């Protein structure tokens, strides 16, 4: 039985090898690098996008195997520093400490902007509130506003939902919304903010709880949640997140998404990153609810 399994494993490996060879043969003219595995890990925001890219890329380049995992931006960058992945996905820029850690380890992270993302502020569809200013959202999350009545809603307590502190989305939201982008502002999330370990956790609570307010990448918003239109300041128009409003810079809560490599990438990693910026790959970005980079 055991021997049988080893044999079939060998057969499988042989098949893989043959497939890889034929892949290179048919496109020998393009002088493609030999096949291999690209380890790709990091932000949970990007993981679906990275998976879709990997699937699509593997149909064009069957000799390259892409292993995509999530875990959070910090996890991805930590793995890159430890040298266990080839590409780290991050929904925030690399921190100064992390860059220093990498340099101490003898590697230099190189940054690529691969797509843009709008953070949608979401509530239960039963909640009549449609629009908020950035200041109001900041006051809600810092605990100054505690009842929906205070922002034009019903008499209900506000339950604040956030991603865990290891999420790039959490850090971005803290800096750009709770602290309104002000470096001197040291406001924190109010203590009673629920820190949920996944986007699914936030989605599940938003769907069933009319008291809840949450935030997440636009790609994770489904039809059974209500997206809030946000104004930069009280006099300005309230804008809903969309590809157009993000690209034009009107929607105030949008960010770049990154991939990091150890040093300037070479070979198949470089080819892959180049492919990601082609219109074909950026179309997948749009399909998944993110905002493509327009070159």
């Amino acid at each position, binding site marked *: 039985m055991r021997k049988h399994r080893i044999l079939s494993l060998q057969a499988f490996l042989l098949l893989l090898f043959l497939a890889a060879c034929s892949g290179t043969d048919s496109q020998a003219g393009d002088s493609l690098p030999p096949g291999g595995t690209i380890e790709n890990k990091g932000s949970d925001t990007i993981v679906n996008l990275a998976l879709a890219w990997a699937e699509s890329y593997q149909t064009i380049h069957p000799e390259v195997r892409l292993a995509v995992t999530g*875990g*959070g931006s910090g996890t991805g960058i930590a793995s890159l520093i430890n040298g266990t992945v080839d590409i780290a996905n991050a929904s925030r820029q690399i921190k100064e400490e992390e860059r220093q850690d990498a340099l101490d380890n003898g590697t230099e992270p190189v940054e690529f902007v691969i797509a843009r993302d709008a953070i949608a502020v979401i509530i239960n569809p039963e909640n009549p509130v449609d629009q908020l200013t950035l200041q109001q959202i900041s006051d809600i999350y810092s605990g100054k506003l505690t009842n929906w009545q205070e922002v034009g809603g019903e008499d*209900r307590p506000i339950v604040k939902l956030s991603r865990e502190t290891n999420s790039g989305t959490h850090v971005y939201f803290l800096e750009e919304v709770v602290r309104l982008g002000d470096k001197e502002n040291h406001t924190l999330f109010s203590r009673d903010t629920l*820190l*949920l370990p996944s986007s699914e956790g936030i989605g599940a609570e938003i769907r*069933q709880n009319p008291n809840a307010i949450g935030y997440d990448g636009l790609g994770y918003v489904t039809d059974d949640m209500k997206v809030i239109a946000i104004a930069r300041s009280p006099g300005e128009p309230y804008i809903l997140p969309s590809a157009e409003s993000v690209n034009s810079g009107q929607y105030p809560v949008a960010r770049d998404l990154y991939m990091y490599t150890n040093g300037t990438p070479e070979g198949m990693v470089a080819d892959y990153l180049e492919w990601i910026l082609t219109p074909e790959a950026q179309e997948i970005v749009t399909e998944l609810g993110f905002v493509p980079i327009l070159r």
Partner: protein
Amino acid sequence: MSRSKTNQQAVNEFFINLLIKIAGYSAILFVGMIFLFLLLESAPALGEVQLGALFSDRWYPIEDYFGVLPLIGGSLLITIGATLIAVPFGIGTAVFLSEIAPRWLREILKPLVEVLGGLPSVVLGFLGILVFSPYLRVLFNLPTGLSALTGAILLGGIAIPTVVSVAEDALDAVPRSYRDASLAMGATEWQTIWRVTLPAARSGVLTAVMLGIGRAIGETMTVMMVTGNAPIIPRGLRDLLSPVRTMTATIAAEMGEVANGSTHYHVLFMIGILLFLISLVVNVTASAVVFRQKRRQDRILS
């Protein structure tokens, strides 16, 4: 021939004895090494964070707030809540299985309880998010159903099979003659259970409770999914209705992200030590009580 055989047997005996000894001592060695490892990894935290800051009331590690009190409070509250649920239900079920249920029902129920004990905690967590928490929110008119109560109920459910299984074995071990004697004296079935069988099995039942508590305090996945993870210090049992953050969930949620060797990393190990010490205290208390009971029993019987 026979001489060499005895020699062979003696050698076998020696090696088997040695192996068993190694196996026995290795458990002690592993616990010791784990404790040492935790101690070494957490010690720098004491130098980097002042004791006052460590025992303050704010946990927000990415801005260097390392107050562990909310986490300890959260773990204790949920464990107490789970114990309040698991002990009556667990012992009740054990009594029913061992003393009251007819044989055929017992044959069905006991495996079912064991299946409940084998449920992966992440599955219970899903159940909690999708069924329990919305239901509890409406039932108690709470702001959110992701609360300590939801966690305590699910943890109670996780601890019940442990309590049932151990307590039932203890009740089973009480000699038939005790019950017969009690019934012969004219005691009712309930009086026999309450006054004779349960006290006779007291040490085993106590072990069951302690194992249940140990199971509840160390559980991670379910509590991380259903308790909301807000680091607020609970002020009493009524805070069961609001969200809490436990030590286990904090370690699980943050360990993957933390930079190796940073203050945050050391503090997470410090929380690990606290958890280790708490479960050690629970276990030592349990065995101390059981030991005293045994001695008393020996005295009475002798």
